[in-house]
């Protein structure tokens, strides 16, 4: 049995989740990573994607649009700009988020970054299959 770590997911408006997990999968800006107990202290930015926390009770998954994660040996804190439980993510919501990502991308000076944002969002949508 692997050790556990404290997983917190907070959005600007409220704390969405606080639970003890064995591992947390995070969509980092430079690639996915999985945090387990004893992980090197890391701070990474997020790309749009799905955060999964695996615990004894099963897997809890949230769709996040961006933000950052702070990983410590004993805890993981994900600060998401916007986070939605995967069960609540439906096609209409995804369309909204996608439109938002597109308008944000249009405002960005860096076209590559904008394209990446939209593509990440599309990938997240495909992964959810809604």
């Amino acid at each position, binding site marked *: 049995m692997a050790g556990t770590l404290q997983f917190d997911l907070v959005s*600007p*408006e409220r704390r969405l989740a606080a639970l003890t997990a064995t591992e947390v999968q995070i969509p980092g800006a430079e690639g996915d990573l999985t945090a387990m107990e004893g992980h090197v202290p890391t*701070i*990474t930015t997020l790309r749009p994607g799905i955060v999964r926390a695996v615990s004894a009770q099963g897997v809890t998954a949230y769709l996040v649009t961006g933000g950052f994660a702070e990983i410590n040996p004993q805890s993981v804190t994900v*600060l998401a700009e916007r986070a939605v439980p995967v069960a609540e993510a439906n096609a209409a919501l995804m369309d909204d988020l996608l439109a938002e990502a597109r308008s944000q991308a249009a405002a960005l000076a860096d076209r590559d970054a904008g394209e990446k944002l939209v593509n990440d969002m599309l990938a997240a949508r495909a992964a959810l299959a809604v």
Partner: protein
Amino acid sequence: MPSLKDLKNRIASVKNTRKITKAMQMVAAAKLRRAQEAAEAARPYAERMNAVMAGLASSVGGQEGAPRLLSGTGSDRVHLLVVMTSERGLCGGFNSTIVRLAKARAAELLAQGKTVRILTVGKKGREQLKRDYSTHFVGHVDLSEVRKMGYSVAQGIARDILARFDAGEFDVATLFFNRFQSVISQVPTAQQIIPARFEGAATTALYDYEPGEEAILADLLPRGVATQVFSALLENGASEQGARMSAMDNATRNAGDMINKLTIQYNRSRQAAITKELIEIISGAEAL
């Protein structure tokens, strides 16, 4: 001397006023609870955000090429004052205290020969600043349509501020709002958001940063502005309801006092009228 009928009407009208202020007080109390909960719920995010940014800022801050949001533009000639007030009145000194603080700062900056620009959030502050500082207005954010103070509202305001910053419209931005302490005490606060300033000790743990420290900082600073605007909005929301609640409590009490006074006056006049009638009857009977 008002007639009995006048007094009666007056009492009825003050009673109505008392009903209204009482109702407003209770509504404000209910809203205050919700506003306080919202402010509390938002705290963990803001605290973590600040801690991480403070850590990053202390390691990147002094270096060349630090983000402009952190290091500033190199001058402090043009100041943007973001004055956050409420959309509605009848909340005691809530708006006036914010405006007074902002006015004092504006006067001080103008005396130093700096340029002052004012962005108003909420109608009441704009009205109060209009007379002296309308030439300094650069924009206004209308919150009258906002039902629930969500993060997206703060993001909108932050985006506006950041766009102005990128366009070189100002060097320093300061938020003016009321920090909520308790129902009876709200503290008008000025908080500098650009260039970013951090209070408290930086996190001591050594982190791996992915991507680099500077890239993360550049990503976080705009978010930090939005977070600060958001917590200011929430603090302001709670303060407004707190101020309204105590103002309406006072008003209700005053109305009660007034009703008592008027009732005594009414009873006295009634008694005087009865006595007068009796005297007339008795002296009439004696004359016979």
